[in-house]
């Protein structure tokens, strides 16, 4: 095994060159190049974190703006709705007042007309009694030949009408 059999002849050369090479590696690459690569990675990480934070802030701002806009919109809509409600209520009230006035007028007219009709009907009904009594007097005379006085006929008609 040359690693052991050659050890006495080669150890100085191995140590010497390894220390030179490892020294160059440690100081030239490990301590000089590596930190710069890590700085690049850190710079990128912090840039990404910063950008993410900025984006998050912008998002929050947009959310706030949208909320304010939404609140404004809601308020305006409520105001408009209240205004419309008020106008509607006023219109309804006006219409109700006019309607009730018209109703009252119509009711008065109807009552007058009904009274007139009732009067006319009563008059007409009174007429019917007399006609019926006359007719009954005539019919009795024609059918039986008995002469009935107008008072008797009127009495009979009244009885029949009252029953019928």
């Amino acid at each position, binding site marked *: 095994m040359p690693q052991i059999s*050659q050890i006495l002849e*080669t150890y100085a*050369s*191995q140590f010497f060159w390894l220390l030179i090479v490892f020294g160059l590696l440690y100081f030239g690459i490990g301590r000089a*190049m590596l930190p710069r690569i890590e700085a*690049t990675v850190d710079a990128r990480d912090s840039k990404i974190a910063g950008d993410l934070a900025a984006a998050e802030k912008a998002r929050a701002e947009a959310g706030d703006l949208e909320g304010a806009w939404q609140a404004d919109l809601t308020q305006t809509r409520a105001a408009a709705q209240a205004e419309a409600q008020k106008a509607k209520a006023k219109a309804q009230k006006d219409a109700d007042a006019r309607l009730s006035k018209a109703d009252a007028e119509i009711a008065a007219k109807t009552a007058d007309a009904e009274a007139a009709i009732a009067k006319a009907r009563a008059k007409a009904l009174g007429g019917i009694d007399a006609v019926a009594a006359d007719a009954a007097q005539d019919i009795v005379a024609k059918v039986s030949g008995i002469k009935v006085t107008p008072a008797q006929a009127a009495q009979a008609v009244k009885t029949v009408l009252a029953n019928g």
Partner: protein
Amino acid sequence: MASEGGKIDPMHQFLIEPIAPLNLAGYDISFTNSSLFMLIVLGTIWLFMLGGMKRDLVPGRWQAAVEGVTGFINDMVSTSVGPEGKKYVPLVFSLFMFILVANFMGMMPFGIVPGVHAFTVTSHLTVTAVLAILSFGTVLVVGLWKHKLHFFSLFVPHGTPWWLMWLIPFIELFSFMIRPFSLALRLFVAMTAGHVLMKVLAGFVINGLNADAAWVAPVVSLPSFILMIGITMLELLVCAIQAYVFALLTSLYINDAVNLH
């Protein structure tokens, strides 16, 4: 691969051969094939990391890959150690990348170019020992620096009954002191064993094809070749797992030093 008299030596791949002899104060510090592969590993990591240095806000594919690896190590250290672990990310990252790329470099099929041999830096005890000592030494220095002598309370776990005080600290001390050995040996053994197994199977394939008897090739070479495909896949997995285990254990040990128990 040395094949003398038809024999293939599976250990030859670990041989360190000098490329340019160097001498410093009596020590042989020759530039070897091992040193060459260390430099290749370093260059590969540097090229990989360079692709991630565009520093775009929106990463391209390469930058995303680099950031994926650094993020992986960063997550591992921060979950093991916590927010204080940030300081140790360069160390864990260097260990992880060096072991990972060195393991993969040893698996690269450089051998298809004649005369070129892939060399696995992490299959050498001298290398894994240095890496383990770096990891263990960091734990010791950080622990003693941060907690002074209080660091030794690490060997008395919270809630130890008084009548076990003569035993538990010694077990804890032993398990603490064994850490660099287990770190170094685990990586060294895993890489060595895998590469020996692959080389032995490759030897079966080649020797079977070269055998005089015609029946040897289908009976020996073909199954060995099929098995070798699976073993190679497994080895690639082991390469990544060993690097991960080394880095994870290092960050767990650093957690002991930073936060005690």
